[in-house]
């Protein structure tokens, strides 16, 4: 019990999360991506589209980080700590129970945030960027849309109100993202059944990136696939996955990639009559029309 309740040194916890969340880019993501490029070459699939798409992914990552940094510095940091100081349950001590529950809550929040981004127009306008690649490799994990950092705020603030320190929550959210990043691969097939039942796996996440009818809006999970099983959004990988979106982007131009969701949304709103209909495009599911 001591293991779970012993108060931990903040620096050690930060160092551990840093090693996993940031360090893994160098000891997992990049080496894995090199293996994937080699695999593309062996399969005769290494072409300009794959390379250009991967470069666009990295560029969208920097654009996303810039937006997130500006938002964080100007606004989010203050909001999180104001809520923590003024609207929170008693602050929780930093121990293993708190860390584990924080990661599970961050994972749960990720599920709902992800689901909402798929199911409302404004959410899809930003998140479609991540899904618009016709490829599936580690670099796609870092393909972000302009407002991808904004939606999680709505779902993570309640966790701060439950007494979890904002810094710990941020680290837990990055941990979920890091786990998620590793799932973006075609190299790993299906894993043993108990793992596939409980955890999100490359197989489950390939389904999530599919534009096949039966795969649309499925498998939103971050770490635990049980959230999808619990809330009716699970689909198993059965037929070959066709990656991308139902209206393909067909461009590796980073600028087009980053903003295409919003330009499409704007065009639809502009060509529709009536304020209510225009507004509905923001909150109705993708594919909705006024007719």
């Amino acid at each position, binding site marked *: 019990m001591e293991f*779970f*309740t012993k*108060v*931990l*040194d*903040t*620096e050690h916890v930060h160092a551990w999360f840093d090693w996993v969340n940031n360090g893994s880019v160098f000891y997992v993501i990049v080496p894995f991506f090199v293996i994937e490029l080699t695999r593309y070459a062996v399969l005769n699939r290494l072409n300009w589209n794959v390379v250009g798409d991967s470069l666009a992914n990295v560029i969208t990552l920097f654009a996303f980080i810039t937006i997130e940094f500006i938002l964080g510095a100007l606004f989010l940091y203050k909001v999180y700590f104001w809520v923590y*100081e003024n609207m929170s*349950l*008693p*602050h*929780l*001590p930093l*121990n293993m*129970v*708190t860390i584990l*529950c*924080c990661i*599970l*809550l961050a994972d*749960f929040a990720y599920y*709902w945030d992800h689901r909402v981004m798929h199911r409302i127009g404004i959410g899809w306008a930003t998140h479609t960027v991540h899904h618009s690649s016709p490829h599936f490799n580690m670099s796609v994990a870092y393909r972000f849309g302009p407002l991808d950092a904004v939606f999680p705020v709505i779902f993570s603030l*309640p966790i701060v109100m*439950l*007494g*979890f*320190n*904002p*810094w*710990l929550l941020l680290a837990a959210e990055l941990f979920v993202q890091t786990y998620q990043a590793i799932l973006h691969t075609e190299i790993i097939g299906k894993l043993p059944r108990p793992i596939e039942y409980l955890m999100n796996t490359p197989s489950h996440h390939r389904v999530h990136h599919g534009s096949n009818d039966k795969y649309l809006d499925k498998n939103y999970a971050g770490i635990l696939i049980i959230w999808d099983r*619990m*809330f*009716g959004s699970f689909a198993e990988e059965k037929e070959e996955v066709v990656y991308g979106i139902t209206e393909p982007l067909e461009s590796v131009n980073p600028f087009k990639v980053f903003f295409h969701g919003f330009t499409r949304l704007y065009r639809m709103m502009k060509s529709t009559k009536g304020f209510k209909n225009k507004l509905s495009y923001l909150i109705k599911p993708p594919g909705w029309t006024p007719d």
Partner: protein
Amino acid sequence: MLFRAVLVLIILAAIPHAFATWRSETRSEEPLQVRVNQENPLIGKWEATYDEMEGKVIYQIKKKGNKIMGYTVSFVDEAGNAYVDDSLVLEVKHFSKDKGKAMYMMEYEGEKYEVICEFKLEGNSLEISYDYYGYQGKEVWKKINE
């Protein structure tokens, strides 16, 4: 669906709060880890001043069972009036040569925090420093000759 989601949220929030409550209730019964002897240079009375308050605080570090614990003795205002207090503020976890680690119990705006701190003994000064999620603090306690 909403019921299940709320239930998950409540369970995952309740667990750490329940452990935190249980932990605070059983803290005083925990096994002791610090070797103590009567020669320990930490033992004795100390005083500290703070920027945010006038006057000073008197502390006493003493042996309690096998533990070394620090308690507030009194708050002394500028006029010399002493207000007696007996709160636990420090629980030494490790002390070797002139450095160590301790749990620092502090109160801020009515909220109690347990923060791991590091301390360093330099002659008659005890320098205590901590970093709580970016909130850094440093204070110096001076030994009082008794």
